[in-house]
Every structure is written in structure tokens, then in C-alpha cells.
């Protein structure tokens, strides 16, 4: 089959690799009909996530048709149409029982690597480094899906792939970000980063009762998209715009009730601290560039909530923890507990409350993926979301 492989920092190639095979009794093989490139794939592309190895198949947002199932998969059969969640969960451990699916105990074969770095291991993920499980990803024609009895969402609808594909990660991730923001009707919510997760966080914040959403980014096409669904936009790169001042100006000096950091470890800043983090990460004194986290901690109102769907990977420097304590804020974060959200969000799509395909800007083939990773990284061609048809 054809697959997009990581071949080193800033280098991906579309290669011919062996087809996946069933390994365990709860596995399924999925013939992939649509897949996508995620913002978090750029952390791999840029070499920020350790334990990626040459040859690893990328991609964790995919859907398709069930090709084959293991002998213990009774809920799916060949020909079923499914969306696959990017986190793999066993459904039986204490964490799955508590519905903290992304903390599943039993799906990371390389848990010892995560334990060394984080103390405990979270669930395995598709196509996201050996530390996160070493599973092949979904930017390919086929994928092996472990615990297919637990994860994949079976579609009984004729909605087109593009409307439901983002149930595999970014729509639930944006939604959980809004849920973690503890929004009550009438709240004002600020969202840093208007990429796909930010867009769905904005949309979800409105669905959960936000009165106002303030969206912060620097790319005109993303800001326009945020305005199109009703947000106020702030371009942090404009001359004389200071985000903290802007947020005070827009909230009567109170600050947003909730802040959502949908940027994560590769934040950009036009200010001095951006240079500081760039230098420190370059010489390995810190691994992440937490400019947004710092700003969001300062910006959120007293007693407010900070929700972090943006990925952080390692060690952060100069995080204003005194401000977090002094204001008594709540912080909620983590990989998405996908399995809680896929069905309810599919219902919202079916009821036409939202059409997630509005974020798509590019439709490409697998062969075109390597060059589109660069476009995606450099934010050229007004790119907002790249979707791949692996059979074109």
C-alpha cells in the first residue's frame, strides 16, 4: 500500500510499504477512504516529539470501510463504514471504566518510554511516535485498528466523508476544550489559535452557551473563518496590538471567563519572549515554546478557567505560576477522551447544528502529501485544513 512516512525532521515521503495485518483478536483492518493532516502532525514534522523513527507512517485522523475483523470483534463486520478515534482504548481498565479513555492502561506497547518521561503512560495513539505506542498511522491506504470493538464509530448515515472525518480528532478535541473551559451561559471565552482545533473550540464554546468568543491568531484566512462563525478577532501581529490589553478592552477590564490555548508547544510571538524561547529550544534548554500558555494565564479573569487542548511535550520555562495561584484559576488539559464525544457530536452533525467540513481548504492525494506538509507548516496558499483521498 501507499503511505506517508516520516523520514527525519522536515522530511516526509510517500512510499510503498507492506499492508497491515491482524495481530490481536480485537483488531480490525480498515480500508481508508479519507484521512487528514493535523496541526499536531507538524510537531512531528518539525522534530519536536522524540522517538519518531525513519519509516514511521504518519497520520491519526482517518475513516474508512472495515476490511477484516479479528475473532473477538462482534460489533463490526466487513463493509461497515467507520470513523476511527486517534486515541486507542481497551475499554476494560480502570481508566476506560472511568471514561478517561485517553489514559487507557493497556494500549501502549512502549509504555515504559512514557513512564520514564511522564511517570505514567497514556493510551497508545496512531502514527505519533514510538513513545506513544509505535502504531502505524492513517495517512495510508489501510490501517490496523486495535480494540476495534471499543473505538471506531459505526456510521449508519449517508453523510459524506468530509462532514464526519473530523470526528476522528479535531472536532471532539475542540469540543472537549470548550467543555474543559467550564463555560456557563453568558460567558466570554478567549481562544488562542484559529487552526482547526481552535475553530471547533470556538464553535463548541458557542454551542455550550458562550455569549462572546474572542479569537486570537495572525493569519487573515483563519481570522476570517473565526469571524464567519461569530467570533470577535484579534490579530496579535498587528502593530500596537497587545493581546492582554485587547482582552481587557473587550471585557470591561475583567478578563475572559475562560481561556483556551489551542496552540501548544510551538507558539509564536512577535515579542521578545518569542526570541527567548526560540533560542532556548535551539540550545535544548527548554523543549516547548509556551508563549500562549504564559499569556493565557495572565489574561484569564480571577477565578477563571484555562483549558489547554494544544499539545505540550516536555519542559516549559518561565510559566507564571504565581499569577495562576494568585488569581485562583482552574486549569484543565490533556489528550481528548475521544470515545465520550464521537456519538453526541455525530448527532449534532446529523441535526445540522454544524457542518465541520467548513474548515477544509485543500483536497489532495497521498503523493502530494510531502509537499503539502511544507505548505501547512509555512501557512502558504491560505491553507486551513488538508484532507487526503488515499485512493486518488
Amino acid at each position: 500500500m501507499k503511505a506517508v512516512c516520516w523520514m527525519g525532521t522536515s522530511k516526509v515521503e510517500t512510499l510503498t510499504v507492506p499492508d497491515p495485518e491482524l495481530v490481536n483478536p480485537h483488531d480490525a483492518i480498515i480500508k481508508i477512504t479519507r484521512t487528514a493532516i493535523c496541526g499536531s502532525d507538524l510537531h512531528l514534522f518539525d522534530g519536536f516529539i522524540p522517538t519518531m523513527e525513519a519509516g514511521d507512517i504518519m497520520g491519526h485522523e482517518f475513516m474508512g470501510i472495515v476490511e477484516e475483523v479479528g475473532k473477538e470483534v462482534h460489533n463490526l463486520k466487513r463493509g461497515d463504514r467507520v470513523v476511527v478515534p486517534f486515541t486507542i482504548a481497551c475499554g476494560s481498565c480502570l481508566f476506560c471504566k472511568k471514561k478517561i479513555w485517553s489514559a487507557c492502561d493497556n494500549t501502549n506497547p512502549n509504555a515504559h518510554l512514557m513512564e520514564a518521561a511522564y511517570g505514567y503512560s497514556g493510551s497508545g495513539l496512531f502514527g505519533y511516535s514510538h513513545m506513544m505506542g509505535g502504531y502505524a498511522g492513517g495517512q495510508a491506504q489501510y490501517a490496523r485498528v486495535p480494540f476495534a470493538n471499543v473505538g471506531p464509530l459505526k456510521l449508519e448515515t449517508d453523510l459524506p466523508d468530509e462532514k464526519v472525518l473530523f470526528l476522528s480528532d479535531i472536532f471532539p478535541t475542540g469540543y472537549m476544550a470548550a467543555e474543559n473551559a467550564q463555560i456557563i451561559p453568558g460567558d466570554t471565552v478567549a481562544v488562542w489559535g484559529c487552526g482547526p482545533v481552535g475553530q471547533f473550540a470556538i464553535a463548541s464554546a458557542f454551542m455550550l452557551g458562550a455569549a462572546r468568543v474572542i479569537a486570537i491568531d495572525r493569519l487573515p484566512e483563519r481570522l476570517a473563518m473565526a469571524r464567519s462563525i461569530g467570533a470577535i478577532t484579534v490579530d496579535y501581529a498587528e502593530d500596537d496590538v497587545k493581546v492582554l490589553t485587547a482582552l481587557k478592552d473587550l471585557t470591561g477590564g475583567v478578563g475572559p471567563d475562560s481561556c483556551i490555548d489551542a496552540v501548544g508547544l510551538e507558539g509564536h510571538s512577535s515579542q521578545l519572549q518569542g526570541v527567548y524561547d526560540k533560542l532556548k529550544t535551539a540550545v535544548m534548554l527548554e523543549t516547548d515554546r509556551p508563549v500562549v500558555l504564559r499569556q493565557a494565564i495572565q489574561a484569564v479573569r480571577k477565578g477563571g478557567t484555562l483549558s489547554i487542548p494544544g499539545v505540550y511535550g516536555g519542559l516549559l520555562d518561565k510559566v507564571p505560576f504565581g499569577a495562576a495561584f494568585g488569581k485562583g484559576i482552574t486549569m484543565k488539559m490533556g489528550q481528548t477522551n475521544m470515545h465520550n464525544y464521537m456519538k453526541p457530536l455525530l448527532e449534532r452533525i446529523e441535526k445540522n447544528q454544524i457542518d465541520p467540513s467548513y474548515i477544509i481548504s485543500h483536497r489532495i492525494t497521498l503523493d502530494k502529501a510531502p509537499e503539502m506538509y511544507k505548505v501547512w507548516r509555512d501557512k502558504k496558499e491560505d491553507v486551513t485544513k488538508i484532507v487526503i483521498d488515499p485512493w486518488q
Partner: protein
Amino acid sequence: MSTALNEKPNAEMLPASSGAAILQDGHYLAPPEDKDGKLWVRTSALVQGSPEQLYDLWRATENAPLWQEQVEEVVITGINTSRWTMKDGDKTLTWNAEILADEPGKRVAWRSLDGDLHEAGEVVFEPAPGDRGTFVTLLMEFKSGKLASAWESLTGRNPKQGVIENLRHFKALAETGEIPNSQTAPHGDRGFVGKMKRSMYGENIPTPPGATAV
């Protein structure tokens, strides 16, 4: 116990002593130190299942190759004895073992009798507080030197990490009926460095099969 705190609605009775010497009269005890030519490892897992179920799975000694790394075969040779074979390519380790204590639903203790490996161990099954499953605590001892490092040279993994991984496999098998495995994942050419790193990640040690058929 004093009467300073009289409202503890969900507190559970503490055992006077706990499995694998973790707790004594309410006080935590560190695992035994490596010394005098002995390596010790103590590890525990919270497993969903009753102590009885987990004891039964553990005590089915002949099934150890399903979940213990590189254990090729276990032959039952008597009521309390068995012969073990570990294999990697053309290298093998064999030894005989005997069960020293066997308390159904609670505890198993064993030691090697003769052969390529000198080890002894104990596994204890205790209900976790709050009805959240069973604590499975494993304490093992290896005689170091030529014989204990036999395991290391066979597996390329420190025996301590091997014990931790085996308990992880046991838990996965008990909870899900299979052991997670990504070693057969398709991939493009890894090049020289990529191949080297597999061993760093422990991916050159075959994941035990867990379930018997897919």
C-alpha cells in the same frame, strides 16, 4: 489508635502487613536494596478482576509463554515443579522451578532449583481499596553474576525491566484478553539508525502472543 479523628466514612481497615513487604503497621517499606550479589525488583499493578480470577490466570503455569517475554515453554514436571525454557534465536536458558507457597486467591511463591537462572519470587493478590480491582504485587530476586546476567544477555533487557514488562503483559491479558503489540506495524525503510533504536525502545524483544489466535 487515638480518638482525634472520629469521622472517616469510607476509610478501610489497614492490614498489619501487606503483600511483598510494602506495608508494616501502616508504614511504607522501601523495596529491598540490591546487595550481596542479589538484584531485587518489586512492582505492582492495579488489575480489574477478582484476586481469585487473577490467581487462577497466574497459577496456570503452563500458560506463562502467552504473557512472559521470551519464555518458550513451561513443562509441568510434578505437583509443584516445572521446567522453564527461554529462547532468543539460537540462545536458550533452561531451569527447573518449584512452588514454595501456594495460597489460592492470595499468593504464590517460587524459586529456581537448578539450571541457567537463579531466581526466587512471590506474587500477592489483594483487593484494592474502594473496590477498584486487585493489587497484584510482584517481588523477585535474582542472583547476579554470570547466571543472572544470562537473562540480560539473552533479552537485551535488564531483568528488573523484564519483570515490570511481564506484569504489564499479565495485566493487559487479564483485563482485555490480549497484549498490545505494534511490532509488526508496516513502515518505510528505517535506515541504520532506525534499526539500532528499536533495541533502545525494547522493540527487538518480541511481545508475547497473549491470546492464541486472531
